[in-house]
């Protein structure tokens, strides 16, 4: 375990922040790191951008860990290890579907697609405007569609509402999605009939992050989300029977 000081913090709005750490390894969009808050816990977070010598991690407050994280100040030392897992492959004419803090890994993906000159369209939804983090950056790089639960930005409603129309209109050939599990289920229902290939960046409770504890293994494939994921493609997901169903908690029970 290595520890690093927080270089900078950006607050997007109440309970949504980006943290910057020294970059000590190469990382690809979709890969994640484990953040250790001494005395609190250790949890996985996607790298949301690489900016020169820094990496960016973007966090939304949910429970005890992210609440403690919100209280951290610049200069505080946090444990950071990784990068773990496999990232996204890079494809042309893709649609990036992000829900809530799931937008984080898509931000780095957008950077990478952009550098390679690959065309993409962004479809980002959240509860409210400020949760669509770095919306302006997405707008600079791509055609964007926004949705919010409260209508404070883009269309009022769910990110999946106009999905099929956008795919047709924008001549989309590939789908990337990151967000809450229910969004994957919806997305899958809508795009499977279209026969489009896709990659989902998923989340599960994790312990080791290095493929040995078995905590993040998906029924029925036996795939370890921390090693063979967190980005799974259509073929991987064919064997995953637990999508949108029960997950395992720290004890390994389905909850």
């Amino acid at each position, binding site marked *: *375990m290595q520890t690093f000081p927080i270089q900078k913090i950006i607050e997007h709005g109440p309970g949504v922040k980006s943290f910057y750490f020294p970059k000590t390894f190469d990382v690809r969009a979709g890969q994640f790191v*484990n953040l250790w808050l001494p005395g609190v816990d250790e949890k996985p977070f996607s790298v949301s951008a690489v900016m020169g010598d820094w990496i960016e991690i973007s966090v939304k407050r949910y429970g005890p860990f992210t609440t403690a994280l919100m209280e951290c100040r610049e200069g505080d030392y946090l*444990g950071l290890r990784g990068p773990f897992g496999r990232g996204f492959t890079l494809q042309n004419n893709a649609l990036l579907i992000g829900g809530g803090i799931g937008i984080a890994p898509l931000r780095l993906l957008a950077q990478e697609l952009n550098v390679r000159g690959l065309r993409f369209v962004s479809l980002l939804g959240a509860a409210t405007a400020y949760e669509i983090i770095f919306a302006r950056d997405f707008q600079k790089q791509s055609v964007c569609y926004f949705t919010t639960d409260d209508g404070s930005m883009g269309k009022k409603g769910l990110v999946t509402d106009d999905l099929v129309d956008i795919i047709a209109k924008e001549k989309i050939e590939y789908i990337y999605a990151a967000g809450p599990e229910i969004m994957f289920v919806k997305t899958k229902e809508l795009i499977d009939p279209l026969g489009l290939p896709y990659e989902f960046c998923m989340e599960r409770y994790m312990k080791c992050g290095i493929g040995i504890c078995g*905590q993040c293994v998906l029924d029925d494939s*036996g795939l370890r989300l921390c090693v063979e994921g967190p980005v799974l493609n259509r073929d991987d997901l064919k064997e995953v029977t637990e999508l949108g169903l029960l997950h395992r908690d*720290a*004890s*390994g029970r389905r909850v």
Partner: protein
Amino acid sequence: MKTIHLIKPDFLNLKMDSPLVLASGILGLTASSMARVIRFGAGAVTSKSFNLEWRKGHRNPSIIPFEHGLLNAVGLSNPGVDEMVKEIRLFRQKSEAPIFASIFGRTIEEFAEVAKRAAEARPHLIEVNVSCPNVRSEFGTPFGDSPQDTAQITRLVKKAAGDIPVSVKLGPHGPGIGLMARVCEENGADAITAINTAGPGMLIDIRVRKPVLSNKTGGISGPAILPIAVKSVYEVYENVRIPIIATGGVTHWQDAVQMLLAGATLIGVGTAVYYEGMEVFGKINKGIEGYMRENGFSALKELRGLAHE
């Protein structure tokens, strides 16, 4: 995985294509996970250790690598016997390879109860974890440090398990692993699993100035402990006639051969999955087979204990 005839072990009449067993606590929570390990070449799998009620275990960080191995203090987190019985049954539907149910108890009586419940799922072996070093603050000294407790647990589990064979998993420290193995054999154990993690150890972050593991201390596994494991297996072999599931630090095929020469019948592989990926099972299988061909061995049992001569 193609069946390699040379490396079929002779362990308690079980049909196995490789002497390699997935060690308890590694990828052993679900049937799906364990079945995948078999596809990569393990001859059998051991479930995560479970007891009656589910347990969250220790907070993260609970598993951390250091330069020469892993430290872990998972704290025996598990979904409880009900859930695990389902997973073991499911595994038996999915795979023909043997599955070993690893059990523990907070009390001596709980060991027997869990064994009885576990037996319902008809695992091919019940492995009794009396040696977890990571729940000391909660349970006190491991039962495996006491010959009396270990004897009693062995007897009770053996009875509760009925016709299912029982292996007792011992730690490297405590009052002499040779003595403990004898106690287990005398009380009916059908096999010995040696060893659990060593140490325990601690790592302190020098910036944050705190122990990294939430439990502060954790058991050590992986390459650092291979010599301790080899020594333990050698000592157990000198003390009992029942077969040994030799576990601890096996990462390369040469390590596995050391274990066989020390007296192993099966070889447990855990932490190596971190260092070498899931391919580690296939690689070790191939290495053992190559060694046997090169040195003119035609069955694993010909190697067993050769270092004692």
